[in-house]
């Protein structure tokens, strides 16, 4: 007999000491036990943390992975990045639905199973990928779909499913300074503590290390501002939300280089004067929890975490927080809101997190890769690190390569590598375009393959999705448009409604109901959203449209029905029901769209 729900909730609340800032973790753990978050469950949690009930519901309703309505015993979510689509995820999903006698997005009548899509799960090099009850499964095939339907119908517990399905490969194809670091745990930290925190910070500044999360802010400067900001406590946050479709390098770092990442966080704590670090890990990577906790426990035993680190006067520890399916939580201020138990809504800036972040205290938010790279600076010095890469882009970059290549996976290069080089190394043929940095990045066409990956030319968080000549670049852009419409947090008008308008226009074009007028409308939305949106999501949401419209215009024009205005729906088709009812199908019962 499972415990009564109240007992389960009470146990979870006790584990988190009734602390509302831990609401994300409380909701996840309660849901893992009870299946979903019923109205009375939410009331109970609200009482336990002393928050207004509506606030708890507001958070629960924000995240895709929280369920405020009954959920199937099996919840199957197909990763729906364009790379999954290219590997045939749609057909596989429909086949699974057919075998289970249900429609996508609908819970089966017996409450057993639901099948739906979700944003990219970070398995682009080994898709098509799914999450079953939020556990990652890679490399889906028609055979696996057949077996999965059987397992679900027979209600076989997930733990008894073939272990091989849950295998996630690193697929490291090229190593450079970071992946070949050769450090033993504690080596970088000892070197930094030998120098002292101020001198170490100077090394980081001298290294020219810049953020790997997208914006490219100088890490040394960020740490210095944070260190100098007054506050009752300082915090280090490692941004492992990795939500940008096509990116999966942080997953590999946390799988096989966790020591390096945690050591980087500890170094950051040492530099800014923090005692606490928080790893914000996307919900899709929930499966890493035990392995990461084990690394933390070992490091505590080795005096690399906890009080009196390396027997010196430095205290620092790390805690893992999970996201719950919201791309916007990769934006640093939305991430902090989420860490505080709230919906992931980007804050008004200034103030920036470095002065007022987590719990309103100075906080440095850094990408996983940035923190890992700081270990090299600690061990080898700033001057050594600055020599790697190009003048304005010191060091190396991990690229997540997926799509039409023979060898998808992780490639590490010194900054300055050309797009063409990466394509050649990965075994790409007849390449039409590369989407660098995911949907919010740039679409690079063949004539630009001589361009370089670095802050001087193409800055990137590392996604590198390759499309060969057989691919339809319009469909790529349409997939991205739907991604943004799904992930917009909804706070500001231009992005909340604009992303929906754009997705609808793209669908209209896809159904061959578009006209040049609709293309102008998309440019207009681009101009509005780019300036008026509250955060980076809305500001860059139209980038893929803009790029593909400019570089692959024929992919759009092929779809234009006429050169005049077209209504969004087919008037004649809309009348078909009336024709059926009146049993008429003569010419007079049809409308001509050419009128």
């Amino acid at each position, binding site marked *: 007999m499972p415990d009564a729900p109240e007992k389960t909730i009470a146990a979870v609340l006790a584990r988190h000491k009734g602390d509302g800032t831990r609401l994300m973790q409380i909701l996840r753990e309660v849901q893992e036990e009870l299946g979903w978050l019923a109205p009375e469950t*939410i009331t109970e949690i609200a009482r336990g943390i002393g928050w207004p009930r509506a606030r708890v519901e*507001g958070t629960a*309703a924000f995240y*895709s992975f929280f369920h405020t309505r009954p959920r199937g015993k099996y919840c199957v979510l197909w990763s729906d990045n364009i790379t999954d689509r290219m590997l045939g995820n749609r057909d596989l999903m429909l086949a699974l639905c057919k075998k289970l006698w249900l429609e996508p997005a609908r819970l089966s009548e017996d409450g057993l199973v639901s099948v739906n899509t979700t944003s990219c799960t970070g398995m682009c090099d080994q898709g098509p990928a799914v999450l079953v009850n939020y556990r990652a499964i890679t490399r889906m095939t028609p055979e696996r779909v057949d077996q999965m339907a059987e397992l679900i119908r027979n209600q076989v517990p997930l733990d008894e499913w073939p272990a091989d399905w849950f295998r996630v490969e690193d697929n490291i194809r090229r190593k450079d300074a970071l992946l070949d670091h050769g450090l033993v745990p504690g080596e970088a930290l000892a070197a930094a503590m030998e120098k002292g925190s101020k001198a170490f910070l100077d090394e980081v500044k001298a290294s020219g290390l810049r953020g790997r999360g997208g914006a490219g802010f100088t890490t040394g400067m960020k740490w210095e501002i944070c260190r100098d900001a007054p506050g009752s406590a300082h915090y280090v946050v490692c941004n492992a939300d990795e939500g940008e479709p096509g990116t999966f390098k942080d997953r590999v770092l946390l799988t096989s280089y966790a020591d390096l990442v945690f050591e980087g966080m500890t170094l950051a704590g040492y530099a800014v004067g923090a005692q606490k670090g928080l790893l914000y890990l996307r919900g899709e990577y929930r499966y890493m929890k035990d392995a990461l906790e084990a690394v933390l426990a070992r490091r505590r035993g080795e005096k690399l975490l906890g009080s009196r680190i390396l027997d010196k006067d430095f205290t620092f520890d790390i805690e893992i927080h999970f996201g719950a399916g919201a791309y916007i939580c990769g934006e640093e201020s939305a991430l902090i809101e989420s860490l505080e138990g709230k*919906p992931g809504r980007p804050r008004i800036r200034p103030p920036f997190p470095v002065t007022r972040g987590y719990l309103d205290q100075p906080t440095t938010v850094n990408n996983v890769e940035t923190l890992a790279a700081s270990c090299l600076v600690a061990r080898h010095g700033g001057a050594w690190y600055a020599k790697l890469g190009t003048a304005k882009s010191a060091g190396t970059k991990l690229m997540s390569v997926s799509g039409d290549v023979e060898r998808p996976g992780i490639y590490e290069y010194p900054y300055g590598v050309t797009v063409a080089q990466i394509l050649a190394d990965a075994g790409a043929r007849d390449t039409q375009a590369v989407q660098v940095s995911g949907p919010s990045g740039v679409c690079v066409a063949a004539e630009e393959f001589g361009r370089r990956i670095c802050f001087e030319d193409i800055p990137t968080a590392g996604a590198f999705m390759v499309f060969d000549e057989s691919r339809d670049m319009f469909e790529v852009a349409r997939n991205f448009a739907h991604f943004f419409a799904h992930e917009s947090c909804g*706070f*500001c*008008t*231009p992005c909340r409604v604009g992303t929906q308008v754009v997705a609808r226009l793209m669908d209209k074009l896809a159904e061959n109901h578009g006209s040049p007028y609709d293309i102008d409308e998309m440019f207009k939305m681009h*101009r509005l959203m780019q300036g008026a949106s509250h955060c980076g999501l809305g500001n860059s949401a139209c980038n893929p449209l803009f790029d593909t419209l400019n570089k692959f215009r024929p992919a759009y024009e092929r779809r234009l029905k006429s050169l005049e205005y077209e209504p969004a729906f087919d008037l004649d088709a809309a009348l078909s029901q009336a024709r059926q009812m009146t049993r008429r199908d003569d010419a007079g019962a049809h409308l001509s769209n050419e009128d």
Partner: protein
Amino acid sequence: MSENTFLLDGEAIPFVPGQTVMQAAKAAGKYIPHLCWHPEFKPHGSCKLCTVKANGRFVSSCTMEAAAGVTIENRTPELDDKRRTLLQLLFVEGNHFCPSCEKSGNCLLQATAYDLGMMSPHFDHFFPDRPVDASHPDILLDFNRCILCSLCVQASEQADKKNVFVMGGRGMRGRRIIINSESGKLGDTDFAASDRAASICPVGVILKKRVGFAVPIGERKYDQAPASVVEVTK
């Protein structure tokens, strides 16, 4: 130019340090279109109607702190054009049938649209399925008209200390006002018609029952003067 002034469409506007551009403009009798901003509450920064260009960069004037010497463009054709588009987006996102709305003439959304010369909704409507809540004895909620400005949230939290309304959910299809009761009904909360939140809504969501159409259409707030006048004098 004296020390604490900035330029708004070419005119020097004085400010007190700490004031936002919006506050200083209003104090000087200058209208910057806005929907989610209200002088009694902290700026929310979500509607983006107040977007201006400060030294050439787009910013929300309700959240931007005034700074000496900054050049701000406000009522330029480019910016008003963007504002009209934002208004259109708000109109098609919800279900607004002005002729039958109790708030007609007192509605800031409608008045701003008139003032900025928005002639049509332009985009196809989304026709969302949104609830009406008549469970409270004195108050009716019609969420078809909600523009997600959060003023009711702020009023209930900061003025009434009740938290009856909370903003939750994600995206256009999810973001909504959540009522603070397990049933989700206003009648099951401690909301009162005398609450500040009961009279804060700039559009026609939160309505007092039995007082409908007390002032005839044609004689209401924005019938007598346009938004650009009312909003800098009230």
